[in-house]
């Protein structure tokens, strides 16, 4: 077996595939590394069968198919990966935004009961729906899909759009409530407003990316 050789035709081919891949960067890099290994194997296979290297490379590329078609085949998996990553990001970072608003709206949360704590958070229903959406997405796109109906890429992409929209609405509500209140500006008010504004910008980017991936899925006829 040969180590990865500098074959310009393979590099150009994979570069064309990369241009047509959309989704999480790390996932795309792994796909390209795996395709490169597969192409190297195919070239080895054809050279062992007696073809000169340039023809073996051309045959391997033909065998894998046109870059656009190969990239289209990965579109569904990349869309689902994007949906899962994004939803996980929102669930992981939600408390980092929420804690500042909680401390601002209820400065001594550990002195109150659970109900009083929940009552202090004006967006609890939105948080519940977001967590439910996230749980449903993980269940129907992960290991539980062996028993549950599997979510296709379009349905999976609806989850980050929903969660991002809920976060946007939640952030807007707390920002408006804060603007109308006499709550302190520094330091908690400033930190809470900043974290919400950052998340709102991320939310707009998330929604745009998810819609771009949906268009990509539609173009790939998946």
């Amino acid at each position, binding site marked *: 077996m040969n180590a990865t050789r500098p074959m310009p035709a393979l590099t150009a081919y994979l570069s064309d595939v990369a241009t047509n891949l959309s989704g999480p960067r790390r996932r795309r890099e792994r796909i390209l590394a795996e395709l490169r290994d597969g192409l190297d*194997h195919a070239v080895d296979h054809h050279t062992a069968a007696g073809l000169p290297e340039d023809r073996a490379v051309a045959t391997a590329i033909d065998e894998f198919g046109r870059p656009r078609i190969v990239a289209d*085949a*990965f579109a569904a998996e990349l869309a689902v990966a994007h949906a899962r990553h994004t939803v996980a990001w929102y669930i992981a970072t939600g408390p980092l935004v929420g804690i500042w608003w909680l401390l601002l709206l209820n400065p001594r949360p550990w002195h109150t009961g659970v109900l009083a704590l929940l009552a202090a958070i004006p967006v609890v229903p939105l948080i519940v729906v977001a967590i439910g959406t996230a749980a449903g997405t993980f269940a129907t796109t*992960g*290991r539980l899909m062996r028993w549950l109906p599997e979510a296709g890429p379009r349905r999976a992409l609806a989850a980050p759009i929903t969660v991002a929209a809920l976060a946007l609405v939640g952030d807007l509500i707390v920002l408006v409530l804060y603007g109308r209140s006499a709550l302190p500006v520094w330091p908690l008010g400033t930190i809470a407003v900043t974290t919400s504004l950052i998340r709102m910008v991320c939310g707009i980017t998330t929604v745009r990316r998810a819609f771009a991936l949906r268009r990509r899925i539609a173009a790939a006829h998946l």
Partner: protein
Amino acid sequence: MIPMRPELLKGHLDALLLAVLEPRPQHGYAVIEALRDGSGGALAVPTGTVYPALHRLERAGLIASDWETVGGRRRRSYHLTPAGRAALNEQRVVWEQFSAAVTALLVGPARPAMT
């Protein structure tokens, strides 16, 4: 041999991939070769179909993968998980029932041998 359309594989590709991985771990291209060679060339599954299908099976927890460096190449090798082994056994039973039913309809009931 009459060539088989890739659409015919729909619904069976998962089971075929699990079956190919049953004896030992394999990398993506070896899986493609095993499908082709194991079926006498009848199942020439497009490359673009096999890699994403393997990724989907991994997401479902039926197979797992390891990255290794062999001869200077980064390689992803897939192997069956216990859940994948169980799913394969289940798929075999389903296939036996399905193929028996389809054969009965397409070929007809077994006829007595003519003397």
